[in-house]
């Protein structure tokens, strides 16, 4: 414990040297900390220790600032010390000053470490901790983040990000990026979520970000589309123009889209473009080969429900199998109502089975008692039972308890 406190003391001293106007109160406090450990000695000669304290401060600060003065001061200090030593039984304070000097030496290493780690003001006098919450009261950057609505709790769960966030200086590292995002039309309310999801955006050079925006401009993305992209996909700006270009090209070629379609797709579901490409290839295979949609149908599906490409393909094929084989919905109907494929299988199943027991499961629009598949999956259970099944909730619950 004492070692820790000393270490903290050392870092404090070295740091305060850098900015002179701040040093005074902290130095006094640090020295008082030390004197507090040696109360028994202090009770004897209190005025002398005070004297030495006052002398010790300027020397320590000036040692750094200009070495020319330090020699003179050292000489003065030595004289002073000799003067003190002449008076008897006051060797304690000299030991103390020696102690501070000797402990000063490793402090340089500490400081070099700090600089290497590139952790800024926030690192000062902090001890290791498990979460960012311990630093919030001390770090102005984290306080600003809280005001923006950044969820520090979810940042610290990802490896390495807590350290990175702590090292940020709001004025220098964060503010330019927020201005930049604001210029792109990202609303201030979504800054919090954006930083929560992707704090590493502060690592990227702002010129690079500008290049990426310029790329989208050159590809004729409108301002509204760009704003949607940056707001709904915090990771978009992390991708280099080369990668984005390759991916947009891939979507264009694979699904035979024209330029407007690509722009529409990217702004409708910006996360799809930066999604895991392996997953997208798998989903494409699943939709084309396993479900058997043809080229135009796939394009139609992609533009109306791009989320289908981000769903686990096993679940997707299960839903499709139920809708197509058990419920008897044709491919055309599924293209018309892609919502059916985005609802979970158990939901589809229990609603369809309930309608089947009521004799209302009739999805052919040309016959009587038609129930739209879109109505089937939309709304909560109460809405479904009252408006689609035209029954009551008790009956539905009794039915569900026989499953």
């Amino acid at each position: 414990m004492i070692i820790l406190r000393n270490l903290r003391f050392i870092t404090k001293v070295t740091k305060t040297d850098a900015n002179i106007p701040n040093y005074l109160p902290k130095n006094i406090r640090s020295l008082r900390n030390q004197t507090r450990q040696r109360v028994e000695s202090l009770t004897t000669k209190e005025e002398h220790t005070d004297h030495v304290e006052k002398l010790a401060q300027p020397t320590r600060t000036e040692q750094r600032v200009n070495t020319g003065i330090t020699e003179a001061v050292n000489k003065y200090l030595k004289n002073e010390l000799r003067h003190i030593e002449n008076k008897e039984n006051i060797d304690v304070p000299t030991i103390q000053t020696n102690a501070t000097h000797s402990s000063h030496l490793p402090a340089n290493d500490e400081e070099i470490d700090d600089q290497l780690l590139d952790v800024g003001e926030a690192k000062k006098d902090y001890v290791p901790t498990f979460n960012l919450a311990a630093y919030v009261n001390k770090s102005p950057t984290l306080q600003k983040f809280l005001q923006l609505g950044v969820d520090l709790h979810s940042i610290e769960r990802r490896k390495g990000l807590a350290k990175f966030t702590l090292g940020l200086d709001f004025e220098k590292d964060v503010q330019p990026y927020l201005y930049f995002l604001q210029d792109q039309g990202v609303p201030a309310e979504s800054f919090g979520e954006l930083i929560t999801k992707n704090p590493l955006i502060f690592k990227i050079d702002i010129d690079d970000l500008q290049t990426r925006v310029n790329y989208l401009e050159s590809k004729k993305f409108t301002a509204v589309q760009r704003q949607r992209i940056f707001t709904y996909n915090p990771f978009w700006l992390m991708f280099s123009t080369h990668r984005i270009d390759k991916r947009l090209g891939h979507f264009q070629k694979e699904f035979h889209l024209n330029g407007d379609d690509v722009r529409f797709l990217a702004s409708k579901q910006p996360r799809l473009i930066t999604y895991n490409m392996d997953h997208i290839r798998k989903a494409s295979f699943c939709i084309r080969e396993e479900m058997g949609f043809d080229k135009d149908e796939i394009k139609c599906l992609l533009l109306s429900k791009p989320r289908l490409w981000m769903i686990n393909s096993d679940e997707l094929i299960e839903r499709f199998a139920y809708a197509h084989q058990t419920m008897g919905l044709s491919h055309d109907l599924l293209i018309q109502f892609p919502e059916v494929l985005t609802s979970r299988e158990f939901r589809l199943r229990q609603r369809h089975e309930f309608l089947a027991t009521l004799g209302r499961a009739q999805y052919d629009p040309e016959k009587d008692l038609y129930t739209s598949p879109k109505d089937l999956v939309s709304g909560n259970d109460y809405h479904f039972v009252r408006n689609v099944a035209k029954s009551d909730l008790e009956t539905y619950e009794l039915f569900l308890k026989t499953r």
Partner: protein
Amino acid sequence: MSLTKVYDAPTVFRHLNGIMNIYKPAGMKVKHVKNAVLHNIAKDLNEMKVREPRKLHTPLLEPGGDANPLLRKINSIDLADHILATGPRYQISDIRCALVAGLGIHTSGVLLFGINKGINQSQQVQRNRPVRAYHVTGRLGMATETHFPDARITVRADYRHVHPDRVSALAASMQASHQRKMYELCGVDLQSQAAYEIACKGLLRPADNTQPVIYGIKLIDFQRPDFTLEIHAINECEEYLASLINEVGIELRTVAHCTSIRCIRHGHYGVETSLLRHGWNLRGVVKNMREQRQVLQKHPHLINQDKIELRND
């Protein structure tokens, strides 16, 4: 007694004790059911009025304190206690939850959980081994590897000769032979006076929880090829019930597999009051626990069992 609406999350959490009765859907693991329910409870608690961040207590007269920027915020809030810094006030791990008795993945029906201080009760309920009642549906004509429909089919057979009275007779004879086994499992020597006295009392609970015991098998529905048996049992598991269906099939000179298992009663906790999937939220859980508390009041022997035989009250 006047009823007031509660908006305060700590109040609700303090009273979140007891046993809840969840309707488990088939095809979902117990672990996932538990996670889903607890996740929704924590989410709803966090949406209510949660505790405000603490006030910051900085000593006013700290040595060298006048330059301390914190001093200016004496009465301001402690940001380290802010929700964004510490995470949500209620998390899944804050809610203690214990299962009374598990159900397999193919089983649907009554699933009991003890929550917070209700864990104690739930353990006692489990220790007393209440009887569970099942509706088990089998399908004749096909046997599968695991006796469940999602496995590979191993045998096909003709089932047109099977009649419901034949199935009922078989069920009755199986019930008789299982009851004979029940006396062996009650924990005393069969040739002793103690065994005779215990046997005089009627149906007995087993001494340990290793061997499944079946008390009743009854045919309640027969629509060839599907048939449904109602089974009352202790210490059973879904594989055991499925293999029972398989045996029924073989005894009937055909084969069968099990298409669904539904637990309709666990002790005195019935399926009527169990909580369906769309009620898995704080409001539903609180209401459900209130209902289940009445069950426990009506039948105190669910916790303090004093008799070895099965009881009807």
